[in-house]
């Protein structure tokens, strides 16, 4: 078979053109995406052009058809390689290729004009192709990262085939015998080679197109993946709606979650008929804004959930065109919670601010250098500055000049993180000074905070207390000293008392002894004194009786007088014994019926020496608390007196009873006898005192003394009232029964 080179080349040109067309279409479609695809287009263009030049050999100058064409082929491949590099994202400097290319073109020129050699030219071209195609193959099969290799494998293999072809051609050149001078007058082999080149070219085109297509698909996939993921998983609610009517095209999961709608609810609905917008005019505003600037950024709007609940959202939207329809891609950031938190925080802040204003102490914050940031109104009042004025001054301005240094040190201490508590004088705007108690610390944000309290008053109080205390202490010391002296005196007194007590004790003892002696004495007296008296009386009596006729009247009278004297003495002795017994007897209180006692005594007396016409008037049931024996002695004595002194009364009347005198209970014995002169009443109760003469009324004068002693021992009083000739009443009191 004779394969006509020219025909093959010609058909190659045609196929090249078709391929070029494909590539150009591809270029047109993809140049937005693959900006460098121009290089590829140029590659194909040059290849085609080169072939055309070859075809036109003879018609055009040799330099064009031989040198330029080959140059164009190589340049084209180089361009293709450069595009491939960009396509796979690997750029590299092609200086080596530029150099080689220049070299190859030079060689081509040489072997065209200087030493025309078809074989040489053929080898040169093949080598050039090999060189470049090898680089392409190498790039596409090895240099690209593994994930991309599936994409580039097709084209890579094509280039490998190109390389092989080139190698075969070169080999053939070296092994073929005959010289070739004309390209077109070549052998079958060459024609075959050309054919193969043609086929490869088509294959290359196909594979490039496929590669690009695959790449596009990959890119779309990735884009879609990216977009989808971003859309689906965004924490913001995404919604894609048609601009014109708000038809919901797409929503993401967050939208579902935030609004409560389900995918089913949204199908076919619009954002308008679902009332997603709280206010219709908001949507209109957004549409407006989008139309003007294409985007809305972070505007706060109110939206409505499925439940009707309102949510506050930060709304961002962009206009995008899908299928030539303007759509809105919106994202809503649900900031309801944040808003509430913000509200709570500002409420909290308001509360704090209120609190700061309400506290009775001054509160303020400072910058680290001491400049005021804020102060509550209390502080402003304390210092006499207005709020504005305060913010212009430094805390050091409130220190008296001499203490400013200390103030600076304090600030420094605070800045290092110490919390301080101290008292210091504070300077007002008007220059007056007052004392404060302060606590200060650095706060989290670096500012200094302090609370102060005006303690001028408290300090004054403390001073007062302090000075009072000192006064008190001196007084106490004085008193203690005085007390100590008194104590000493008391102790001495006690000593003296103790001594006196001892003395009293010993006196008591001797008194007891004396008492005992007295008792014994009275005992003797009652015996020993009476016996001689008896003798005197007895024998006087005998004398009178037996010697009656021997005695004259006077003698008888004398004897009578002796007898009376002895009897008187006997009575005296008895009375004295009684008197002494009153103090000796042990005192023992009992309930004593005085009425009964008085009656008994009166009866005895009346029996012994009866009084004519005697009337005794005794009040009944007078019961007193007294010593039985002693009160008996007293009553006996009183009644004896009553009987005695009514002895001369015609109608003697003796009365006993009780009465109330000056609120006191008094007992009385009354007689209507001879009475006595009240002028001598003070002598009445004296021992041996008599107010009457013995001839008139015998008596020893001891009786009433005895009675007084008895009443005294009872703790009572006794007194008498009388009128001469009318009678006498003796009153006495006795302490009450229960006292």
């Amino acid at each position, binding site marked *: 078979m004779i394969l006509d080179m020219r025909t093959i080349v010609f058909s190659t040109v045609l196929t090249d053109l078709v391929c070029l067309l494909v590539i150009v279409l591809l270029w047109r479609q993809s140049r937005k995406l693959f900006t460098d695809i121009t290089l590829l287009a140029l590659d194909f263009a040059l290849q085609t052009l080169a072939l055309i030049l070859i075809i036109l050999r003879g018609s055009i100058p040799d330099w064009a058809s031989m040198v330029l064409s080959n140059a164009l082929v190589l340049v084209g491949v180089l361009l293709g390689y450069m595009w491939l590099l960009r396509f796979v994202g690997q750029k590299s400097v092609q200086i080596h290729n530029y150099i080689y290319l220049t070299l190859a073109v030079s060689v081509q020129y040489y072997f065209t004009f200087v030493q025309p050699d078809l074989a040489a030219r053929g080898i040169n071209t093949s080598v050039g192709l090999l060189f470049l195609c090898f680089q392409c193959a190498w790039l596409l099969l090895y240099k690209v990262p593994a994930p991309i290799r599936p994409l580039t494998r097709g084209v890579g293999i094509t280039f490998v085939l190109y390389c092989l072809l080139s190698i075969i051609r070169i080999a053939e050149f070296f092994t073929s015998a005959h010289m070739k001078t004309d390209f077109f007058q070549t052998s079958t082999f060459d024609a075959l080679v050309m054919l193969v080149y043609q086929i490869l070219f088509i294959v290359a085109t196909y594979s490039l197109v496929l590669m690009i297509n695959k790449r596009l698909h990959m890119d779309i996939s990735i884009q879609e993946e990216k977009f989808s993921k971003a859309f689906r998983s965004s924490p913001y609610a995404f919604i894609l709606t048609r601009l014109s009517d708000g038809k919901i095209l797409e929503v993401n999961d967050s939208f579902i979650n935030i609004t409560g709608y389900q995918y089913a609810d949204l199908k076919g609905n619009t954002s308008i008929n679902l009332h997603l917008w709280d206010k219709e005019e908001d949507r209109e505003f957004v549409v407006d804004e989008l139309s003007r600037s294409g985007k809305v950024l972070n505007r706060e709007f109110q939206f409505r959930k499925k439940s009707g609940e309102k949510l506050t959202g930060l709304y961002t939207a962009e206009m995008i065109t899908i299928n030539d329809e303007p759509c809105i891609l919106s994202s809503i950031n649900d900031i309801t919670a944040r808003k509430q938190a913000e509200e709570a925080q500002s409420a909290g802040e308001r509360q704090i601010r209120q609190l700061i204003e309400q506290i009775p102490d001054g509160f303020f914050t400072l910058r680290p250098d001491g400049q005021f940031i804020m102060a509550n109104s209390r502080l402003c009042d304390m210092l006499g500055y207005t709020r504005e004025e305060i913010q212009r001054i430094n805390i050091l301005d409130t220190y008296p000049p001499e203490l400013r240094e200390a103030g600076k040190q304090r600030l420094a201490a605070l800045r290092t993180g110490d919390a301080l508590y101290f008292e210091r004088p504070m300077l007002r705007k008007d220059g007056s000074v007052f004392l404060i108690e302060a606590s200060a610390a650095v706060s989290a944000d670096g500012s200094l905070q302090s609370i102060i309290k005006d303690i001028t008053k408290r300090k004054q109080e403390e001073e007062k207390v302090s000075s009072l205390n000192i006064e008190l202490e001196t007084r106490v010391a004085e008193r203690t000293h005085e007390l100590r002296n008194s104590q000493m005196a008391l102790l001495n007194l006690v000593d003296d008392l103790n001594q006196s007590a001892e003395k009293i004790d010993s006196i008591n003892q001797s008194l007891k002894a004396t008492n005992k002696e007295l008792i014994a004495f009275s005992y003797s007296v009652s015996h020993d004194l009476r016996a001689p008296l008896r003798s005197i*009386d007895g024998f006087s009596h005998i004398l009178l009786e037996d010697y009656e006729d021997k005695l004259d009247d006077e003698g008888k009278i004398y004897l009578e007088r002796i007898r009376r004297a002895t009897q008187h003495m006997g009575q005296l002795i008895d009375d004295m014994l009684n008197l002494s017994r009153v103090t000796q007897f042990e005192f023992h209180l009992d309930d004593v019926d005085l009425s009964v006692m008085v009656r008994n005594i009166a009866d005895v007396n009346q029996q012994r020496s009866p009084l004519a016409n005697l009337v005794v008037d005794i009040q009944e049931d007078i019961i007193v608390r007294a010593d039985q024996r002693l009160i008996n002695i007293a009553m006996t004595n009183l009644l004896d007196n009553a009987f005695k002194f009514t002895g001369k009364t015609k109608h003697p009347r003796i009365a006993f009873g009780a009465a109330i005198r000056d609120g006191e209970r008094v007992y009385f014995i009354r007689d209507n006898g001879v009475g006595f002169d009240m002028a001598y009443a003070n002598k009445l109760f004296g021992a041996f005192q008599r107010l009457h003469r013995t001839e008139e009324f015998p008596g020893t004068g001891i009786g009433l003394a005895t009675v007084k002693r008895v009443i005294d021992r009872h703790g009572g009083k006794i007194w008498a009232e009388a009128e001469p000739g009318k009678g006498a009443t003796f009153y006495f009191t006795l302490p009450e029964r229960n006292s």
Partner: protein
Amino acid sequence: MSEKIILLVEDNPDDVELTLRAFKQNNISNKVVVARDGVEALDYLNGIGMHEGRDVKDVPVLILLDLKLPRINGLEVLKKIRSNEMTRLLPVVILTSSIEKNDLINCYETGANSYVRKPVDFKEFSDAIKSLGLYWLIMNNPAPVRIS
């Protein structure tokens, strides 16, 4: 067994004199034996000492006993009298100046039958003796003598 004897135990001679006179004046004619102190009294009653050989069965019908006696005092005598089987039941009248409570109690405790205070006034004294005699010698029935 014959006559009723009164034993008077009294140390004061004046008082003895007066007592005897009082007996006489009041027609008390019993034989009165006078013992000048307690020892004599007991001697008499026991038939010893100065009354050696006396018939002790011949007990007095009344003993008038003073308390203040030399040597053995009246209370002691009374005790002795009361402890002697023969004289235990004899009437003893304490005749003394004292009216002390203790004396009274002790005498009665020891078994005196009566206690009379000697008045100073002779008239009264005489009356007292009269009453005593009347009562104890005539009215009163003494205990029968036990001869064991």
